């Protein structure tokens, strides 16, 4: 499959304030680049990410959604990411039924110290989404204009 370089996917990244958002800041501080297609939304914890947000993003034309949180065991709120992990595991397995390829959704644990991981994760994720091409299946037709 050839990678469509022209295609600029819309990627929504939900990052928890304490680890992953800080990890993204560290990636910035270390000048570790990743595609500008990634736009970060700061949430206090990965457990704040409601499946509604993810579906909303796809509805509005996102091509990929990634959720980043503290490593299991390191949640600032001690247990938030464990709940997030279960929720996303189930949700993702259902999105498959509605035609969202599993490569379009991802959960990654990125600590505040893992600027490198943040950047490589985003690079990988974006190229995986690019390879899939635009998300046409779960978009709302009314959102095109």
């Amino acid at each position, binding site marked *: 499959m050839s990678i469509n370089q022209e295609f600029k996917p819309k990627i929504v990244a939900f990052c928890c304030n304490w680890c992953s958002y800080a990890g993204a800041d560290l990636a910035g501080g270390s000048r570790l680049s990743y595609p500008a297609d990634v736009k970060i939304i700061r949430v206090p914890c990965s457990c704040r990410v409601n499946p509604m947000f993810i579906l909303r993003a796809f509805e509005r034309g996102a091509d990929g959604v990634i959720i980043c949180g503290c490593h299991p065991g*390191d949640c600032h709120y001690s247990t*938030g990411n464990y709940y997030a992990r279960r929720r996303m595991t189930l949700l993702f397995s259902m999105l498959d039924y509605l035609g969202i390829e599993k490569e379009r959704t991802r959960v990654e644990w990125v600590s505040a110290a893992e600027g490198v991981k943040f950047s490589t994760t985003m690079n990988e994720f974006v190229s995986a989404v690019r390879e899939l091409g635009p998300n046409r299946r779960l978009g709302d037709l009314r959102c095109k204009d």
Partner: protein
Amino acid sequence: MNGIGVFVCHCGSNIAATVDVKKVVEMAKLEPGVVHAEEYQYMCSEAGQERIAKAIREKKLSGIVVCSCSPRMHETTFRKCAEKAGLNPYMVEIANLREQCSWVHKDINEGTEKAVILTRAAIAKVSLNTSLYAGESGVTKRALVIGGGIAGIQTALDIADAGYEVDIVEKTPSIGGKMAQLDKTFPTLDCSACILTPKMVDAAAHEKINIYSYSEVEKVSGFVGDFTVDIRKKARYVNMDKCTGCGACMEKCPSKKALSEFNSGLSTRPAIYTPFAQAIPNVPVIDPSQCLKLKNDKCGLCERVCQAGAIDYKQEDEIVTRKYGAIVVATGFEVIKLDNYDEYAYSQSKDVITSLELERIMNAAGPTKGHLERLSDGKAPKNIVFIQCVGSRCADGKGKSYCSKICCMYTAKHAILIRDKYPDVNVTVFYIDVRTPGKNFDEFYRRAVEEYGVNYVKGQVGKVTPEPNGKLTVHGVDLLDNKQLKVEADMVVLAAAIEPSPEVRNIATMLTASIDTNNFITEAHPKLRPVESPTAGVFLSGICQGPKDIPETVSQAGAAAVKVIGLLAKDKLLTNPCTAKADELLCNGCSACFNVCPYGAISYEDKLINDHGVRETRRVAVVNNALCQGCGACTVTCPSGAMDLQGFSNRQIIAEVDAICR
């Protein structure tokens, strides 16, 4: 109608180099609700803040977006600025154009396009922001220090000296910690006990300090200023009030097979014991796994010899519940288990020992009364080999990835002490690097080489093989000579890595403090807030935060104390207003939120609800704002969407999603 102001910071050239800030301003002006947009060199500067304040006042802005560096950097700055100008501080949103845009994207078109979108998202969010007001909570003027080593003792002393009450919880029968086990300290070679025991005595005697020895923290609830802690005082079987510390019981105890923890298992102790002679409190404990009376109701000798009548076999664990305003974690370290390093024959030969064991051997109160001798046959060693970095700096998953920091110095100390006392003993140190940053540290190491003739060889040891003649062959390499070496040794000392005490994981969970992959507690900021945990009111002292030597530990202990004092000096604390809030009209009272709340912040009340004219009593969720930390777990578990998070509401996040996907 909204009046939103957008302020785009150049951050010198940090942002402006890869983001066309003028374009961002221009595009921001087109967004609904935006009535003001400008750019400036440094928004966080005084002049920059003044511009913001002026715009807020003059244009009566209802919300502002600052497009600048990470909110983790300057959100507080801009909130304060807004507040001064008369705007609610929570009407401020930051678009992170530096760390998450200009610094990671090189192409100015891409950078600008993304900056515009991030700004748009922040505008969309801020237009849904509502004014939030911090609540107030009181401060219990007492601190808890978990761990009674040098870190805990110093922190407690400093806090107590400032006039606040401190409780120390120490899991072993005596305070003192690892430092009490050390023989001498580098680089001055002071006797460890000589400098530590006075501090222990000070702590015990201090009217503001209360020591819970042989106790553990069982449960922590509450929040900064108002923690409630359950402390389990383990049954000592000795009445602390009656015991005079005469020691008769320990002498008479017939069960003497237990390995002495204090002597690193190199000697035995009785079932009723104090860990060491200078123990504080000087009250023994009975080890129920060893005591014949407690095990099978025989013996009872100690009870008979105790003139004070202090022995109480019926004693049970006791839970003490106390309130604290602040908690300091000073749980210290352990030496790692060497199971993964069989090549060094630690498990095969008694003459392969760890450095901490050597400390005990060298110590006059130790198992050999301070004589340097082989544990296998009691003979004096002629050749001693030290192996550095055992389990430290390992990337292979067997050991620790970090440098344990103290080994280079204590090995130099050991080498010097040995060569000083036993000049005929040859000492070889196999090292990878010798790391001696610290005052007088390198000089100390050089003295070992230059004055004491310690043979430092660069190269890690491959393996140690015990020989039939009782000797040990050390298979090493001299990388500088490019030669393989086989050194015959009588004793091998391993500088084993140190790791945080295993309890710290449990304690951190109770405190909701985060822990890194190595079990060190994460500090709130690695450089700027090194003694605070991200959880408000929880502070860090000593090795629980990262490897450090005694001077560093003591300085950090003092620093943690200062932070605690600063907190306890306040009468009221402001609480985070970004808490969860239940919409009573939508709440089902189903308890889903209660089940996921890590702080026990949610309770239920039967309330009379007026739902659009329908009046009925309903079970509804109520959030305790002082307990809620704002994680949002409840908001997602709530099916009806009754539970929302202030400052990160559903509609705000959806607005951001919409803005990004537009």
